[in-house]
């Protein structure tokens, strides 16, 4: 290949005789974002790609879960007027709706937390501010997910 290109390629015509051939290869330029031993720990994985993928996949599932939830809670059978302890007890008597609500809780909280993480990264310019805002976000997220999960699993229709 180099034998041909050195004499007749467009590059040679424009830039004169090539300095490189098979015996004198061009120096290798390191890809600017190649991962090395010096790469910070945070960027050695594909975390951001998986987060991006998770937003799309969880989003599609959430469209079904959340719009179904809105139909049941706000539209069908009298809308919001029917909601009360008895209504919740009736729904959570079925494992189907327990799983529905559990999936919705986890996916929505993780989807929302990752979205807000992106927003914080975009607008909080000072390192300290960014760090503490994200710590606050993660704390609130873990607390809310655990609380919601506990409520679904330990629900007692005969609490009184």
């Amino acid at each position, binding site marked *: 290949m180099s034998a041909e290109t050195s004499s007749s390629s467009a590059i040679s015509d424009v830039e004169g005789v090539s300095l490189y051939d098979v015996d004198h290869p061009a120096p290798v330029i390191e890809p600017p974002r190649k991962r090395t031993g010096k790469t910070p720990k945070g960027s050695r994985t594909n975390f951001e790609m998986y987060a991006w993928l998770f937003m*799309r996949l969880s989003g*599609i599932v959430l469209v079904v879960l959340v719009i179904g939830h809105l139909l049941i809670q706000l539209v069908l059978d009298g809308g*919001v007027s029917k909601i*009360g302890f008895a209504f919740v007890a009736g729904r959570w008597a079925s494992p189907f709706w327990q799983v529905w609500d559990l999936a919705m809780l986890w996916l929505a*909280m993780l989807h929302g937390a990752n979205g*807000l993480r992106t927003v914080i990264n975009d607008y909080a310019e000072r390192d300290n501010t960014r760090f503490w805002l994200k710590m606050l976000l993660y704390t609130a997220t873990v607390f*809310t997910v655990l609380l919601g999960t506990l409520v679904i699993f330990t*629900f007692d229709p005969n*609490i009184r």
Partner: protein
Amino acid sequence: MPAGTLYRGREGMWSWVAHRVTGVLIFFFLFVHVLDTALVRVSPEAYDEVVATYKTPLVALLEYGLVAAILFHALNGLRIVAVDFWAKGPRHQKTMLWTVLGIWIVLMVGALYPVLGHAVREVFGS
């Protein structure tokens, strides 16, 4: 500010802005909503008392706003998925945005009576 130096994006940028704003609003509501639902572990009375506020006309209006935010975020989210995964998605992104807004308006009109009907009856009697 010199004229013409401020970047004003078109459909793509404004849908991105609206997606962010609705996303943050929905996330904050979600916190409150998990907390109010957690009251079913306290007592039926505590839960019913808080849910009663959800049935007032003012909060019904907020619920209509929440539905508006969720429906836009959901439909525009599907558009984003199409832009990212469908080979012709980027070429049709504007058409898809107007489609999203069209469906959104239809759904919002459909949600008027179910979500706000009881509030209207309460405010104006009957």
